[in-house]
C-alpha cells in the first residue's frame, strides 16, 4: 500500500502565536480507515483543516495523491471530501440544491442521478426537497456527508462525525463508512469515542497537544499494549493465596471467591496451562473461568496521561 496523504513536519501556529501542531508527520495509506483519537484541543481539527486548505501551514509540506496542497492545490483538493465538525449549512436551501452546489464547486458537471444515489445511501432521499432548517441535527450531519461525497472524493475526512449523535445514527454512520471503504475511499475520522475507533478503524493514531503520539495497526496496538485477564471463580473461598502460586501474581477478589491472573497476549507463553495445573495441585476447585481484554480506552488514557 502507498500513502495517499502524506504530511511532513507540519507546524501550525495561529495568529496569536499558539502552536496547535508541532511538527506532525503522518502517512495515510490508500484505502484504509484511520481513526485519529485525541482529547479536545489536541489539534485534530487543525490538522484536517490544514490538509484540506482551510488553514495555511506555518511550515512543512502536505501531499494528497502525490499533489502538493500548496502549489498544486486544485489537483490535491479535487480528491478530498470534508465533513466538518461544526454543522455549517445554508438554512434556506433545499438538501438537493445544497448538495448539488458542493458538486459544482468541485468543477463536476451536474449529475442528479448520482446525487440522488448518495442521498438514498444516507437515508436522505425523502428529504431532498426539504429546506435544511427543517431537518433534525442528525439529518443535517448526513447532509454534510452527502455534500462531501457529492464530488466523488478519493479521500474523505470526517471530523467527529458522531459527536452528539444518537446510538442508532452512529451505527448507520459506521455502515456508510464501511460501504465507502469497500468502494475504495480512504477515510480519516477524528473522534473521542474510543469505541468508534475500535469498531471501524484499520489503524489508530493518537494525537495530544499538537503531537502525534503513535500511529499503529489497531489489532497490533491492542495486542502489543493490551493485556488479558483470566478470571477464575472458585467453588470455595480461599483466605490466602497458597504459597505455591505466589509466582503468578494473582489478585484475590470477592472475599476470596475469585482470583485474577493478568497475562500478555503477545508473550511467548501465557502461563495459563501451568497455572491451571498448579491451581489443582494447590487444592483449589474452579467453578468457572473467563478472559477479558483491556480496551483501546485503557491504552489511550494511559498514553494521554503520560504526555500531560
Amino acid at each position: 500500500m502507498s500513502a495517499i496523504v502524506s504530511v511532513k513536519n507540519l507546524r501550525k501556529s495561529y495568529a496569536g502565536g499558539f502552536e496547535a501542531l508541532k511538527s506532525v508527520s503522518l502517512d495515510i495509506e490508500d484505502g484504509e480507515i484511520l481513526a485519529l483519537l485525541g482529547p479536545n484541543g489536541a489539534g485534530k481539527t487543525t490538522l484536517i483543516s490544514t490538509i484540506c486548505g482551510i488553514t495555511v501551514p506555518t511550515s512543512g509540506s502536505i501531499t494528497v495523491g502525490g499533489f502538493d496542497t500548496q502549489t498544486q492545490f486544485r489537483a490535491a483538493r479535487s480528491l478530498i471530501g470534508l465533513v466538518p465538525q461544526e454543522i455549517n449549512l445554508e438554512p434556506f436551501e433545499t438538501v438537493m440544491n445544497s448538495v448539488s452546489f458542493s458538486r459544482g464547486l468541485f468543477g463536476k458537471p451536474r449529475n442528479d442521478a448520482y446525487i440522488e444515489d448518495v442521498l438514498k445511501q444516507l437515508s436522505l432521499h425523502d428529504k431532498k426537497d426539504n429546506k435544511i432548517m427543517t431537518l433534525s441535527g442528525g439529518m443535517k450531519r448526513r447532509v454534510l456527508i452527502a455534500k462531501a461525497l457529492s464530488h466523488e472524493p478519493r479521500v474523505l475526512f470526517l471530523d467527529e462525525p458522531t459527536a452528539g449523535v444518537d446510538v442508532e445514527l452512529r451505527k448507520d454512520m459506521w455502515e456508510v463508512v464501511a460501504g465507502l471503504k469497500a468502494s475504495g475511499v480512504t477515510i480519516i475520522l477524528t473522534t473521542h469515542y474510543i469505541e468508534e475507533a475500535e469498531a471501524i478503524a484499520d489503524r489508530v493514531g493518537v494525537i495530544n497537544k499538537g503531537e502525534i503520539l503513535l500511529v499503529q495497526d489497531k489489532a497490533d496496538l491492542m495486542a502489543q499494549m493490551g493485556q488479558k485477564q483470566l478470571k477464575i471463580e472458585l467453588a470455595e473461598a480461599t483466605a490466602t493465596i497458597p504459597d505455591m502460586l505466589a509466582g503468578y501474581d494473582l489478585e484475590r477478589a470477592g472475599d476470596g471467591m475469585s482470583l485474577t491472573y493478568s497475562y500478555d497476549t503477545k508473550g511467548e507463553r501465557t502461563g495459563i496451562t501451568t497455572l491451571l495445573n498448579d491451581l489443582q495441585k494447590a487444592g483449589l476447585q474452579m467453578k468457572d473461568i473467563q478472559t477479558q481484554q483491556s480496551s483501546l480506552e485503557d491504552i489511550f488514557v494511559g498514553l494521554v496521561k503520560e504526555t500531560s
Partner: protein
Amino acid sequence: MNLNAVWTIYVFEMRRFFRTITQSLVSPVLSTSLYFVVFGAAIGSRIQEVEGVSYGAFIVPGLIMLSVMTQATSNASFGIYFPKFIGTIYELLSAPISFLEVVMGYVGAAATKALFIGIIILITAFFFVDIQIAHPFAMMAFLVLTCISFSLLGFIIGIWADNFEKLQLIPLLVITPLVFLGGSFYSITMLPPVWQTITLFNPVVYLISGFRWSFFGAADVGIGISLFAIALFTGACMAIIWWIFRTGWRIRQ
C-alpha cells in the same frame, strides 16, 4: 480556471435573489416612484429646467445610480459575508478553486442583481417622465461598469466585516452621503464655487455625471474624465481584492 464553480456560485446567489424577488423589486420600484412624486412632481414643478432638461427627467440618471450603487454594494457585501457568518465558507476554502473564481461568482451575481434593479427603475421612470437616451450603448456600458465596480467594493466590505454592524457601516456612512452629495438631484454647477471644488473629490460625481451625459449629451464634467475616474475606481478595487487573494486576509488563517 474552474468555470463550473463560477457558474455554480453565480446560480446559487441568483437563486437567493429570486427567492425574495418581491422584496428585491418592490422596494426599489416603490422608493423610486416616491422620489418621482416628491422631487419630480411636487418640487420639480417649481423648478424650471436644469441644463436644458426638465427636472423630473434630470434626476432619472441620478436616481438609477443611487439605487444601483447601494444595491451592488450591499448585495456583494452580504453575499460573501453570509457564508463567513454561517460557516459555509469552509466549502469555498476547501474546493479546488482560486479566489478569482470566488470573486467572479459573487461579484457577477451581485452586479447582475444591481443591473436588474437599475433597469427596472429606468422602466419605472418612463411612466413618470419623458426621457430620451442620447447614447444608449454608453448608458448601458456605464451602468454595467458601475454595477461591477461597486460589487467589487461590496465584496471587499464583506470580507473585511466581522459583524453585521460593520457590514452596514460603510454603505451608511460613506456610500449614501457620497451618492447624495454626488449630484444625484442637482447639477454641481448649482453649488457655490467652494463646494463645487470640494465636490470634485467625490468619485461618485464622475459616475453620475458620465451616466447623465449618456442620457442628455451634456454633463458637469467631461466624459473622458468620467471614464477615467470609473476605471481608476474599478482598478483600485481589483488591486485590493488581488491583495486579499494573495494574503488570505480575513479568510484563511
